[in-house]
């Protein structure tokens, strides 16, 4: 019980953000209207995805300094879960874009950056699949993971600042934090972010343990 408090916290926070997200009043905005509630579901996906990818990066770096295969397993599983969360983030974003910007896909740097980072990590999965030898696979995948993470950060952090974006906070648009979100929204938004990161961590944790059991059975 004492070890599992963060899982319970994750459930409670996400449950609170779902109930609160639909019931608590939100500021009335032109165009956005009630779709502003998507903030509680769309943005936490990105936070959870980035948190998991960063966790994966740390495991890859740690793997390269000691060549412990269980670290490689952690990196692999968190990339898989983050791909799932990224796909969800993309879908919720597309739905939102349809109602506010008028089409499911717009040529926006952030959207493209996201598509690129998803492609990068799909490539990571393919790369793992096409190398047989466990040790070589782990080494090569770790190297690619580190390189890909840095390039992804370059893309989604630096490039959007150079061009215009429809997203708030870039390219001259007012930022969400300073204008659109009032305190009642923040009271739902931050718990949602933390909650989804915890849920993501839990799924990853389960996947890592399942894989460990599988490995044990295969080599026993």
């Amino acid at each position, binding site marked *: 019980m004492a070890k599992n408090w963060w899982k319970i916290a994750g459930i409670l926070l996400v449950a609170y953000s779902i109930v609160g997200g639909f019931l608590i009043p939100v500021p009335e905005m032109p165009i956005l209207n009630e779709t502003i509630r998507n903030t509680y579901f769309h943005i936490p996906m990105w936070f959870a995805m980035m948190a998991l990818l960063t966790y994966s990066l740390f495991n890859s770096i740690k793997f390269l300094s000691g060549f412990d295969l269980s670290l490689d397993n952690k990196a692999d599983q968190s990339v898989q879960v983050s791909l799932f969360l990224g796909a969800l983030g993309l879908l919720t974003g597309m739905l939102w874009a349809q109602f506010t910007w008028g089409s499911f896909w717009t040529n926006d740097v952030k959207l493209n950056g996201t598509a690129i980072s998803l492609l990068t990590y799909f490539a990571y999965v393919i790369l793992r699949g096409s190398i047989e030898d466990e040790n070589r696979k782990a*080494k090569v995948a770790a190297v690619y993971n580190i390189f890909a993470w840095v*390039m992804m950060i370059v*893309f989604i952090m630096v490039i959007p600042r150079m061009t215009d974006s429809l997203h708030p906070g870039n390219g001259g648009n007012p930022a969400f934090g300073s204008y659109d979100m009032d305190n009642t929204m923040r009271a739902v938004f931050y718990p949602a972010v933390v909650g989804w990161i915890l849920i993501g961590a839990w799924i990853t944790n389960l996947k890592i343990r399942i894989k460990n059991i599988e490995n044990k059975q295969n080599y026993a």
Partner: protein
Amino acid sequence: MQYSRIKSLVSKELLLDWKAKNSLAGILIYVASTVFVCYLSFQHIVEPKTFNALLWIIILFTTVNSITKNFAQESDNRLLYLYTLANPKEIILSKMIYNTILLLILSLITYGAYTLLLGNPIQNQLGFLATLVIGAIGLSVTLTLMAAIASKSSNSSTLMAILSFPVILPFLITLIALSLNFVEGTNPGQNFNYFMSLGGIIVIGITMAYLLFPYLWRD
């Protein structure tokens, strides 16, 4: 790390490629036929955006093809011999230097053939050539590490494309925006920023390759 060793490693690459003229000629034919296909389908490109994007796509594909060969042609035995002579940091640096030279020549040839056949709407030739140079450096730096990674797998040619395209995109998009400015001769104020961010990405790429390749090179 020794400069003399890097120099001899680069000349080793040069000699090897010169000896196997087949693969070198193959890349040249690749460029020629791709440009010719574009010529037959477009005849003459007036629109700067299309002109620019198509040229960079041709260069990108040529690059990916030529750099994939560079790692795949090294046999296991020769690599083993190389490990006894040099350290990995020298090897990756020499490969990047050699690939930059190769790409510079290739992209100049592509540029020549392309403008010869499809017309030359470029307003600022000098700026465009500078873009070609910085593009060759950036592409070779990033793709060399990707080729090293892809060569470790069983289907290296497919993997090379799917690994490197997403990773090269931040660089490529900035590059295309910069060269479009030179083709159209507009927005001279933006160019310095673009050059700076391209340089930044190149520095990041070199650092990463330099740090990561030692983990990659031998199993």
